[in-house]
């Protein structure tokens, strides 16, 4: 049986560039979806030879949306290299505050700026409407909350690290400066409002799901194991903890798995058509062992959330969506439960006098290797480094959240295409639905329709032999041509 090939190229804002190919057989059934990451970043290679203390500053440049996660996870790895097994309490609290602020602002960006146009206006709404500007015009009360939640998180980051994006705070064995009462005070005044808005958004997420329940729960529905960090009591843990893995039915496959032994837990497979690797759980093998990470994974696999309003929201979510929940669109709801948790955790930390302490650095006996693991906004993030006797990096392995969700995104796209591809006709609506599926996992893979500056997108239909059957192009000025 011959196959038809559908190519979406580029899928814009994939930290640069990406495309989607759909393989369709004669019966019009999508047999395979391939999300290609066609741009090679090369961080693991070009940081070789660099002094190890530079890593938290260098690797945060991987991303402009979640740089703090890379900054902190690299710092966690470097802590081990300088022989520090436990930070001072004030340094740990400052890092946790920074991380909660990062996840809060990133989740707000993901939900309000990137996903809300789909959720509020519908997946088939006109292209001109599917962006944050339209949300500001038509639903200003929602958009303004989103902008202010994000601003709150970013201002905390600026207070701690000197900049809202790509700041400087975590250093080997600690942090470089405390907060001051003057810096903390404005956040104390605003944090309760932020918590209330996050809780309202959790309710909005449920309401939006409820309005079109069957569609939401069936859209791109796939089932998979989930992986993420949990605390020692099984609680949701974003900065520290050990790894837990549950299978698609919710049974625990691994619990309190030590982060520094991750190479025994997961392996990475390389495929010829993508620069992005395909991690899998060793115990399940490369075919069955792919898994998902991120907000939905974390809400699914934790036993509880250690802040009251987010825990109540988690329980309501589980009653509604089941345990574990699998629908990709439920990532958005889970995301806002986590945002609520972050806001509550920030409120608790802001009251802690340790934030003013100058006891911020520890030292120890130099090691040759460090492994950091953290829960970034999009999921579990691994940084693994080795250095030589001259303090130069010799090996770096970074497994980012997007990579862990790689196979899941491919399978979700395949499922969406199976559900919505009408024979061999390419439509702008299908193009957007594919992007909606990707966007549920990762805003770094968000696409043209949500860009304020319009991004080009090409949809190409061709046979296996390369004959072009149909082509659809969205140009930079927003108009679509065939």
């Amino acid at each position, binding site marked *: 049986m011959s196959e038809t090939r559908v190519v979406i190229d580029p899928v814009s804002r994939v930290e640069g560039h990406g495309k989607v190919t759909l393989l369709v057989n004669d019966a019009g059934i999508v047999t395979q979806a391939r999300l290609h990451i066609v741009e090679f970043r090369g961080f693991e290679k070009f940081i070789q030879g660099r002094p190890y203390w530079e890593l938290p*500053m260098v690797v945060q440049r991987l991303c402009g949306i979640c740089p703090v996660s890379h900054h902190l996870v690299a710092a966690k790895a470097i802590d081990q290299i300088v022989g520090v097994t436990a930070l001072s309490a004030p340094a740990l609290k400052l890092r946790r505050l920074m991380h909660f602020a990062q996840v809060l602002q990133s989740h707000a960006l993901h939900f309000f700026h990137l996903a809300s146009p789909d959720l509020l206006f519908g997946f088939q709404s006109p292209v001109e409407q599917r962006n944050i500007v339209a949300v500001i015009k038509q639903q200003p009360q929602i958009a303004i909350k989103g902008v202010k939640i994000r601003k709150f998180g970013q201002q905390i980051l600026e207070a701690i690290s000197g900049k809202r994006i790509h700041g*400087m705070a975590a*250093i080997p064995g600690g942090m470089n*400066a405390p907060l001051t009462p003057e810096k903390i005070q404005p956040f104390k005044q605003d944090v309760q409002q932020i918590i209330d808005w996050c809780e309202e958004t959790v309710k909005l997420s449920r309401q939006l799901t409820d309005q079109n329940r069957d569609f939401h729960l069936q859209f791109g529905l796939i089932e998979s194991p989930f992986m993420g960090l949990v605390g020692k009591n099984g609680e949701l843990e974003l900065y520290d903890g050990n790894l837990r893995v549950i299978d698609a039915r919710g049974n625990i496959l691994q619990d309190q798995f030590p982060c520094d032994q991750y190479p025994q837990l997961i392996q990475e497979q390389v495929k010829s058509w993508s620069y992005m690797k395909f991690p899998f759980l060793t115990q399940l093998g490369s075919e069955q062992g792919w898994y998902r990470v991120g907000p939905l994974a974390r809400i699914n696999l934790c036993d509880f959330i250690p802040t009251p309003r987010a825990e109540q929201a988690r329980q309501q979510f589980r009653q509604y969506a089941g345990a574990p929940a699998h629908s990709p669109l439920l990532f958005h709801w889970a995301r806002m439960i986590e945002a609520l948790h972050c806001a509550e955790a920030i409120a608790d930390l802001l009251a802690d006098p340790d934030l003013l302490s100058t006891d911020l650095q520890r030292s120890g006996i130099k090691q040759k290797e460090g492994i950091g693991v953290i829960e970034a906004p999009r999921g579990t993030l691994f940084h693994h480094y080795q250095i030589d006797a001259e*303090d130069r990096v010799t090996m770096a392995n970074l497994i980012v959240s997007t990579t862990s969700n790689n196979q899941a995104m491919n399978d979700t796209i395949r499922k969406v295409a199976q559900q919505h591809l009408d024979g061999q006709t390419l439509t702008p609506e299908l193009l957007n639905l594919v992007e909606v599926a990707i966007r549920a996992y990762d805003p770094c893979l968000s696409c043209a329709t949500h860009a304020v500056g319009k991004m080009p997108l090409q949809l190409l239909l061709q046979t296996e032999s390369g004959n072009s059957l149909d082509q659809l192009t969205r140009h930079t000025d927003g108009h679509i041509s065939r």
Partner: protein
Amino acid sequence: MTDTLQFFIDQQAVPFQPGQTLMQAAQAAGLYIPHLCFHDGLTPHGSCRVCIVEINGSIRAACTTPATANLQVHSETSALRTQRRQLIELLFAEGNHLCPSCEVSGNCQLQALAYDLGMTHYEFVPLDPHRQNDGSHPDLFIEQDRCIFCELCTRSAQQQDHKNVFGIGGRGADTYLFAQADSSRLADTAITAQDHAAHICPVGCILPKQGSYQIPIGQRVYDEQPIHLRGNHRPDEQDATP
């Protein structure tokens, strides 16, 4: 009683002592002439050329030109600013000066001059060198691709620390900083972290292994004031043993 010796920079009178260079007299008078390879107390080098001034239509390095009575010196002209900026752009293109993650960002004199002279982008194609970094010393790290060959470290080691530690080898694009040891490794020289030479590099080439990124953004040398007001300084310049 003798008249005060003086010359003029941009029509402003500058007093000087016999034997002083234009740069030394200008510094003593509180006038800033952009520079990188000059350091008060070390033999002038005249290599970076950033301190170029115009005298009677010719271009001279202020750090090597003796002060002369009633000399008319032009410094802050549009043409000279352009030439100084181009010199800075060439230095950026010759090395790997990646400010966003560099640990001396905010404290770097090359970066500060680039801001001050209005450099907004790479005008020249970067040479993208790849030299082997030297981390052999227990307290110091040499980031070879950031060296601007000002030889402040070489002169400081010789004249202040009385040690032979650094040298410049190669030619043209292959020029490199080397350690004066049979092994060419810094660990096999006599330099210590307390030496003047360890605290004089104007860029991010000679780095301490401890204490990186300690100064928060907002408190670094050039966060508050541009280099023409702040002068050429390092945050750790007082750490050298007198």
